[in-house]
Structure formats: structure tokens, C-alpha cells
């Protein structure tokens, strides 16, 4: 029961964070704040991933064998207490991708500020549209 409440609490926190971050990406006017909201969303999703791979036992251990010359006992202790490594690996990949996208967006934001002289998304939109008609 306690663990169930804990799980509920963690998911609730993460999803509310994610929802607020999505709102931030959509509704914030500052282009830098949009990027920050995107990174928050990435992080919330990554935390969900880590949590999916968690193991509800008293002492879960990182998925690393504690020695390179294991015997049967160490091996069976390892497979019975290690958390799921796959979501962690997926998260590492996703983190790198997130870093790449954020880096590109940051460069783009600097360029945008340089060319438009403002960081307001609506203002930039207005300037672009105004140039067209």
C-alpha cells in the first residue's frame, strides 16, 4: 500500500511537471524560456524512464556486477537485486539527443536575437509576417 502511494506520488509529480513544461513550450513568449521548458519536459520524461526500470525491493542495486571474477553467489545476488538497465541505457541515449537539440536551439536563439533584436516569439512572428505583406 505504501509503495503504491509512493508510486502514485512520483508519477503525479512527474506528469504534472511534464504538463506544465508542455504548457511552457506552447505558451511562453520568450524564446529562451521555451527552450528551458523543453529541457524540463525532457528531464521529466527521462525521470519517468528511470522510474519504470526501478525495482521495489529493500536494497535495489545499480546494474553493475561488483567484480570481474564473479562466483555463483555474487552472480545470483546480482541478478536478484539489480534494477532494470534497459531504461537507463535508453535515457542516456535520450539525454544526448536532448543535449544536441538544446544546443542547436540555443544557437538558433542567439541568431534570432541578433537578427530581430528581441526574444519575444510573438514579436518575431509579427515582424516576419509584416515583412511578407
Amino acid at each position, binding site marked *: 500500500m505504501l509503495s503504491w502511494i509512493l508510486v502514485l506520488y512520483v508519477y503525479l509529480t512527474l506528469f504534472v511537471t511534464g504538463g506544465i513544461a508542455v504548457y511552457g513550450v506552447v505558451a511562453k513568449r520568450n524564446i529562451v524560456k521555451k527552450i528551458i521548458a523543453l529541457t524540463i519536459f525532457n528531464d521529466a*520524461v527521462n525521470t519517468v524512464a528511470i522510474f519504470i526500470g526501478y525495482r521495489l525491493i529493500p536494497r535495489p542495486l545499480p546494474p553493475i556486477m561488483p567484480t570481474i571474477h564473479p562466483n555463483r553467489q555474487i552472480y545470483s545476488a546480482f541478478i536478484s537485486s539489480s534494477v532494470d538497465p534497459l531504461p537507463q541505457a535508453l535515457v542516456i541515449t535520450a539525454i544526448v539527443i536532448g543535449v544536441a537539440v538544446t544546443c542547436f536551439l540555443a544557437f538558433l536563439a542567439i541568431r534570432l536575437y541578433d537578427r530581430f533584436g528581441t526574444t519575444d516569439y510573438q514579436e518575431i512572428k509579427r515582424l516576419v509576417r509584416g515583412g511578407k505583406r
Partner: protein
Amino acid sequence: MVPAVDPLLGLVVLVLALGGFTTPLISRLSRNRYAVRTYPLIYCAASLAMASLIMEHVWVAGEPVVYLLGGWRPPVGILYIADGLSALLGVVTSLVMLLIMIYSTGYLEGSGREYTYYSLMLLLEAGMLGCIYTGDVFHLFVMLEVTSLSAYALVAYIRDKREALYASYKYAIYGGLATTIYFLAVLFIYGGVGSLTIGDIHLRMAAYMSRYARPVFLCGLVFTILSFTAFLYKAAVFPLHFWLPDAHPEAPSPVSAALSGLVVNIGVYGIVRFAYTIYHGLPDPGLYSLSLMITGGLGCLSSLVGAVLMASYKDVKRIIASSTIMNIGFMMMGYSTGSPLGIAASTLHLMNHSFAKSLAFLSSGVLIKSAGSRVLERLRGLGRALRYAGIPFAISLLSLAGVPLFNVFVSEYLLAASFIHTGKWVFLCFFMASYIISTIVYLRILYEVCLKTPAAPTTHRSGREWIPVAAMLTALSITCIITGILSGYIISKIIMPASQCLYTNTEYLETVKKYLLNIH
């Protein structure tokens, strides 16, 4: 080794990535500016050869060919798998990419940063081929990101243009959101089913459904909603189409051709793959019909919105870009009929649209460059002055307008037939309405650009530069006409097997099952 294991599947992506990695180095090592232009072409040609060989292997084997990366069997490692549809899309993608790259050598001005263009184009192709051939949901995410990031960057290629920067930002920020949502979907399916391979997900869902019908359904529901959000964004379907009229026209014309002709296909491919391979044939048909419903409903709206947007713009590239929204809507409608005929028609339309749309962008690029503007009035009569671009432009417009003898007509005719056949009268209404609007717009452009007399004398491009441009325009025009004339042959030999294999996913699943590692 099992004969159906085909290393080309993995190699084609890796080779393209290698080309992308080494292009900057070549541009630094060699002072000759032709080196950096011809070097990527080797990789493009190699990828076309490999994609064709893969298609041939699929034909010969009569079943999907697979490649086990790292030697790991499906649920553990990444699986590359090509059935008829993937093989066809792979060939189309690499062929159009090769033509675009050759065109670019003549079209782009020599500047200090051409190497970024070629490098990113190679990565774009690598990402698209990876998306097409992969059989793994998470690898699809990675490849989607490779494609997207290259696309975002290429949209901003003209970095001093304010509109390009704005369009790239808009495309990238919401694109980043969409792909992250897709990652969330992958996590849910892993948490729920415990597997990442597409075929294995179907098998496991089918197995679990007998015991836990409702949880599996809800898990699939979340997966569908989240992953389709990402794919609909990539395919620019109605509520998520807002980036396209900004992003596609602002890029240089070859990039527009690649984005509009090929990259949007990836979104459609993802939706189709998920709907037909994962959900079709489950004990509970709820997920299948739901995904078809989403696809069909949004496809209808999308086609109409695309047509209306086309009529509202004055900018030629914007009009052509908006017509992509409409055509994607047509494809979605065809795929959502759930009948073999509709799938075949949509697949054919996918292919034809790629050829015609890239031709339209490439030829309009020459005209726009010579006029110095994208507004329709300024292009008046240019098609007559610049014949080598004007005639291909006319061909592409006629083709897109659905005039008989050209390729798009055949697929649109088949689409209408499939709507009638399955009794989807709503689809037919939307289809006819958008078809009529779009045809009027196309013919108006044709009249303005290619039939009127030129307003002012234009400057012809001189030198050897235009030879690859003209050659590629001719090649694509011929492709458009030939695929139109030989449609009967193409449909019976290529399209029907591909769509049959997609519709009844048993072959695909059998192949995956053959390699499945039994883990409990």
C-alpha cells in the same frame, strides 16, 4: 548464416553516416571546390545501389528480409527489417535524394559552408533510410531525431534570412516536443509489454490480451495517442501542420524538395507501420479501428485545410508546400480505408507525390532564382523564357493537378475508387472538394508562369553550372511521365505485393517470429 539475413540493410545507413562524417574533412583537405560536391554523390549513388539490391532481395526471397545488428536476435537487440513497403520507400528515397544532390551541385552557389549542406543532406538520408528499415521502436526514435535535426538545420541554411531562422526555430521547438512525446510513448510500451521490437510488440500484445484485455488496451491507447502525435507532427497533418507553410518554403529549393517530397513520408510511414503491423490482427480490434479512425478523420480535415491554404497564398513555394498538407491528407484517407485497394492507392500516391513534388520544388527553384522573388506576379511568363526549367515545372504542375497521363492522376483515381469501393462517401466528398480547389490553383499557376508572355527580359544562367540542374529536371520529368504511363505494370509488380504484405501482416510477423529469441 541464414540466407534472408542481409547485411546491406545495416550497411546502407552506416555508409551514409560515414559520408556525412567525412564530408567536412574533405572540404578542408581539398582546395578543389568540386571535390566537396562530388564526394557526397558517391555515397548517394552507393545508397541507391544498396536500396535497389535490398528491393531485389525482397522480391527474390518473397518475404521480408532482416538484419540482426550485432547478431542479437529480435527482442534483445535492434532488428532491421525490409518488407515490400520499406523496400519501395527506400528506393524512392535514395533515388530522389541522389537526383536532388546532383541538382544541388549546380544550383547552390559556392560558399564557404557548402560542406555543412552536403554533410547534413547525407545525414538526412541516413536518418530517413534508418526510419524506413528499422523494426525497433526506440531505434525509430533515434533515427527520427537524426532526420529531424538535419531538417531543422537545413531549413536555417540561409542563415542571414530572418524568415528562415524563424521557421527553423518554430519547426525545431515543437519538433523537439513531439519527438520527446514519442520517447514517452516508447517508455510506456516498454513498461507495459516489455519489448521494443515492432513485431514482438504485436505478438506480446496478442498473447497478453487473452488474460488482461483492458490493461493492454489502455496501454495501447496511450501508446497510440502519444506516438501518433509525433508522427502527425512529422507528417504535417491538420492540427499539427502549422510549421510546414513556414519551414518548407524558407529552405533552399533542393532542401524544400527533400523535406516536402521525402521527410513527410516518414511520418506517414510510421503511422501506417504502427496501425497495420502492431494493431492489425489483434484479438481485440479496438486499437486498430481507433488508429484508422484518427488517421481518416485527420486526413479528411488535412486535405481540405491544405487546399484552402493553397488558395490563400500568393507565394509560389508556399502554395506548393501547402499542397503537401493536402496530399498527405489524401494518403492518410487512403490508408484509413483499411482495404487492400486503398492501401495500394495510397502507397502509389506516396511514390508519385514524392517524384512530382520534388520536381515542382526543384524546377520552381530555378525560376525563383532567376526572378529573385517568390511572388506569383513576379514569375509571370518565366517558364517560357527559361525552357529547361519551365517545361519540367509545367509537367510537375500538370501531374500534381491530376491530369490524365501523368502519374498522380492514376493514384488519385485509385484513391477515389477505393473510397467508393469501401463506401466512405465522406472521404469522397472531402477528396473531391480539395481536388477541385487544388486543380484550379495549379492550373492558375501554370497559366501565369508557363503560358503568359514574359513581363521583362530575364537573365539566363551561363556556364557549366546549369548542366546538372537541367539534366536532373529532365530525369525527374521523365520519371513522372514514365511512372504515369507504366502505372499498370508498377501497380501489379511493386505496389500490390507491398500493400498486400502490409495489409496482412502475417508474413512480417512470421519473419520476426522466426528470429525471435525465446526469453521468458
